[in-house]
């Protein structure tokens, strides 16, 4: 069983929901990203999604685009993303890490080299936003033997036929996109999401977590109630945008920056 599956199974045993924050690696700097990850875990994060910055993030809204731009301006490369994970792993071997991003930087590194680095750094899962199930075989052939989970998005627009091929390729958890749009937009119809998750439960035993548009305790409570967990990205990246790359912050100050995660943890623990 992978570290991701173990984590979610243990949460389910305790009747708890998974809390998965997303931040961009290198935003605002590589050392601060590592410190922020520890702060997130201290506030109750179960899994961390770490964004691999890309110059053209066409599935992301303005907040995460700007986060990626800050990271790239700071010179963050894919090797730096692995360095972040390695550094984090020196103190935390328990919290699963999922790398989320776009395909081109991986293509340029080469699939085999990427798979080797992923394993060496201690990454647990991958979510490549612009790599649909029918194009994934080659990359997955490289990463699967390393025991890496391959996570997929399911959108409100996903057809039943596609659901099947996605579920066949997806491991770890299924990421349900709450809305039609990009990251950071607002959720409008939670009943429709509940219905769709109901449908997904009939098709797959995979844990289902909800992301896109979860920005406060209220939206987190609603979505956690109908799923196995929630992903919080833009709301967090927006708060991180106020940090300066060249300044030192105490762990306490960083805890305040990611305080939202603590509030959401408390809220969803009441479910």
């Amino acid at each position, binding site marked *: 069983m992978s570290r991701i599956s173990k984590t979610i199974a243990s949460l389910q045993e305790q009747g708890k929901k998974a809390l998965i924050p997303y931040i961009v690696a290198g935003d605002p700097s590589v050392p601060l990203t590592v410190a922020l990850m520890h702060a997130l875990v201290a506030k109750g994060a179960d899994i961390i999604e770490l964004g691999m910055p890309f110059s*053209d993030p*066409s599935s992301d809204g303005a907040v995460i685009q700007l986060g990626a731009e800050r990271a790239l301006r700071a010179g963050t490369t894919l090797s730096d993303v692995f360095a972040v994970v390695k550094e984090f792993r020196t103190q935390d071997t328990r919290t699963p890490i999922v790398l989320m991003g776009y395909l081109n*930087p*991986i293509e340029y590194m080469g699939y085999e080299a990427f798979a080797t680095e992923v394993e060496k750094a201690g990454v647990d899962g991958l979510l490549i*936003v*612009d790599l649909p199930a029918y194009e994934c075989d080659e990359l997955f052939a490289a990463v699967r033997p390393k025991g890496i989970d391959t996570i*997929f998005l399911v959108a409100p*627009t996903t057809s039943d036929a*596609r659901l099947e091929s996605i579920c066949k390729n997806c491991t770890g958890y299924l990421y349900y996109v709450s809305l*039609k749009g990009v990251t950071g937009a607002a959720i409008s119809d939670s009943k429709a999401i509940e219905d769709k998750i109901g449908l997904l439960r009939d098709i797959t035993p995979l844990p289902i977590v909800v992301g896109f548009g979860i920005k406060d305790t209220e939206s987190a409570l609603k979505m956690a109630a109908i799923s196995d967990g929630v992903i919080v990205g833009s709301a967090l990246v927006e708060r991180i945008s106020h940090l300066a790359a060249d300044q030192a912050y105490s762990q306490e100050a960083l805890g305040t920056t990611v305080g939202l995660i603590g509030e959401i943890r408390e809220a969803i623990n009441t479910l």
Partner: protein
Amino acid sequence: MSELKQDSRNAQPAADQFSGPDDHGHFGRYGGIFVGETLIAAVEELDQVYSQLSKDPAFWAEFDKDLKYYVGRPSPLYFAERLTAHYGGAKILLKREDLNHTGAHKINNTIGQALLAKFMGKPRIIAETGAGQHGVASATIAARLGLECYVYMGAEDIKRQSANVYRMKLLGAHVVSVESGSRTLKDAMNEALRDWATNVDNTFYIIGTAAGPHPYPKLVRDFQAVIGREARAQSLEQYGRLPDALVACVGGGSNAIGLFHPFLRDTEVAMYGVEAGGDGVETGRHAAPLSDGRPGVLHGNRTYLMSDAGGQIMETHSVSAGLDYPGVGPEHSYLKDIGRVNYVAATDKEALNSFRELTRMEGIIPALESSHAVAYAGKLAATMSPDQFIIVNLSGRGDKDIHTVAEIDGIQI
């Protein structure tokens, strides 16, 4: 060579190296569908609709009717006699796409995609634009069909192409200034993809070039192939044979693939795609991914790209906004690899020079994009004999560029 021989060659079964793409949009290893999950259903639906309609003669009859009565096709194949004498060597013939309604080849594609939007019942269209020609063509067709239209344009390009911005507004389109990234065509395309993901139920995305996720590279090519079909027939009619060479500029590559595609099986016709060499390919400041890039994935397809060593898309440099794009249509990547088309580059300076030559010698002001093709054709013609001839795709007219050229000349107009 006889016309008959050409025709029998075209009649052979389609399953050869030029029959792509496959069902998932691959031209060899290029193309495909690389978009976020929210958009997959939309591109799959478009693929289904297009597969069905493209087999329906009534669809093509409507397309042809619009091209004839609204666009003004066929566009002439014109012998540029003074330009030929100037360069020396092979005859230079211009395929006059600049004479189309709205002033460029872009309208051929928007007519076709608007027919698809109409069939699919989408009341809202969106488009990305670089030089503004595709934006104007989209705004035009939206006005004609009474559709709501949003055009995404990089803030940098809005500055360079203010006349086209105003044309779009006159036509009733909303022009959205894109401030992210390098604030040019690639960023406009990102923003259009975000809009599409958000408004996927009521919106049709009219992609302006032969790139993007499948089925766009295929359908844009099919709509632009009218250029090559006409040129082929005109060549046979006016000169009794096929041309020795074809030359077209390549940004995303829609005018080039439109000219080339109907000739691909005519092995005796040489083809040259001319990329934007900017300050010179050797300087790194250019927009020539086929000349100096490597394959990667951007905007829904695998193709040659200009990325840094870490796979981040690089800023491109070209005097021509319409060629200022770090990728290229996937079919061009394939045609490069199999060696059917030669991809070369012309610098800003060469293009500006040809812009002036064509204007002064033929009384035709070409778009800066098309000037790249003219520049290379001049060099090529000089190496060929006077009994040979070259067809150059004059993809657009240059009215939109007069401010850019005036500024380079230090003139305020």
